[in-house]
């Protein structure tokens, strides 16, 4: 079969328009930052409280953070992800970061509202319905409190993390969120290194999760920020590293280009360690299907997806989803490809 030319792949006006739209964001260069060692809940399988980073000293000086953000800007960083343990507990630091770096996202449990003056995307972690949250996160009425804090807030995206045990609850949660006009995307529980608990996915749970994701995407297209290709990429029997080759420094020795060159994961003491640098440190790479990892790893593989219209359009859907989830003001378009497409070089599951 004759290979497709790139010019032909983008000949369709709708595809061309989407391509032109997403490529405007190719300038984004991310790094991530642990903001505080404190959290107001303690969840089973939490990434922050694994490994060494939880023991770093906490440097809560706003001017030190300001200096760091300025230095980050100088070395080309254009996007910050503020996480661990619970960033909403240090609103003054969030404000400083936003003043210095206008694009970014905050990963929060949503119990405490982040001031509107911090204009980043806000990702609210949802681990099931309130009964399940109560059990796993030891916190009552999580979803109700998150909705109360963020309903109608254009910054907010609810991130539903699928485990093998909350797949059936996703419909109930999606229904509640869509009724309240909230945006929702999906994450996959990805086991930390050495994790021996019950939340690790199995082949059966991966299959069921893919089906649930596609069903909810079809049922709530105005509220679910996702695509069929997202579902495939994140529920494949192989993790993201095996499918796409993770580009984060932890798995990528090259310092010449891309994430290997610019990405850092800062701890609360404002130091970083290349050996541990990825979006969710202490995840078992073989089990990594994390939404944040995919958001960097899949878009980076543009070339290998430009092979035929379905594969390229699936990649565009993925990038469109990533931008809608992570960038303030970016509105997701309708998905271009709703058929199941395999990651290049692999089967569909």
């Amino acid at each position, binding site marked *: 079969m004759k290979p497709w*030319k*790139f*010019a032909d792949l983008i000949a369709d006006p709708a595809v061309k328009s989407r391509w032109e739209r997403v*490529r405007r964001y*190719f*300038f984004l*260069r991310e790094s991530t930052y642990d903001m505080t060692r404190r959290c107001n809940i303690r969840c089973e399988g939490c990434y922050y409280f694994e490994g060494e980073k939880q023991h770093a000293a906490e440097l809560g000086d706003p001017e030190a953070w300001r200096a760091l953000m300025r230095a980050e800007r100088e070395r*080309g960083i254009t996007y910050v992800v503020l996480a661990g343990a619970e960033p909403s507990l240090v609103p003054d630091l969030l404000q400083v970061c936003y003043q210095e770096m206008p694009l970014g996202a905050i990963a929060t449990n949503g119990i405490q509202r982040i001031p509107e003056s911090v204009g980043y995307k806000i990702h609210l972690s949802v681990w099931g319905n309130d009964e399940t949250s109560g059990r796993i996160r030891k916190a009552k009425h999580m979803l109700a409190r998150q909705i109360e804090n963020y309903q109608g807030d254009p910054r907010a995206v609810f991130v539903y993390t699928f485990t093998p045990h909350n797949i059936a609850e996703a419909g109930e949660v999606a229904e509640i969120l869509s009724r309240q006009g909230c945006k929702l995307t999906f994450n996959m529980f990805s086991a930390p290194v050495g994790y021996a608990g019950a939340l690790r996915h199995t082949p059966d749970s991966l299959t069921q999760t893919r089906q649930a994701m596609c069903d909810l995407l079809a049922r709530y297209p105005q509220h679910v920020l996702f695509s069929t290709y997202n579902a495939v990429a994140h529920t494949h029997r192989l993790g993201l590293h095996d499918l796409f*080759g993770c*580009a984060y420094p932890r798995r990528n020795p*090259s310092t*010449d*280009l*891309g*994430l*290997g*060159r*610019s990405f850092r994961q800062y701890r609360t003491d404002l130091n970083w360690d290349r050996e541990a640098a990825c979006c969710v440190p202490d995840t078992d790479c073989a089990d990594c299907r994390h939404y944040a990892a995919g958001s960097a790893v899949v*878009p*980076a*593989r*543009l*070339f*290998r997806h*430009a092979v035929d219209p379905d594969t390229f359009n699936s990649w565009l859907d993925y990038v469109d989803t990533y931008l809608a989830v992570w960038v303030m003001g970016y509105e997701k378009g309708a998905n271009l490809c709703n058929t199941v497409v395999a990651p290049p070089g692999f089967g569909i599951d």
Partner: protein
Amino acid sequence: MTAAIELDQMIVNIAAIMIEELKLEDVTPETFDPEIDLVDEVGIDSMDLATVALVLRDKYAVRIDEDDYPKLTTLRLISEYIHRKLADRG
């Protein structure tokens, strides 16, 4: 046409593609310094290189392997890479 002239012409042609695709300003194909570091001095990154690689694939029917991107940090290196692949193909 000698190989050196071919390479010089290819540098100008690829410069034109990069200017067009990456919307570079204040430079023409003739004034584009083939030795300038594209990452450090022009500010392009892996996604930009992937875009250029796709357009070059169309023009020259040459595939630039993803693993080779980190080595292609100047216009000259990109041009030599394409030139070499074309020569290998005969």
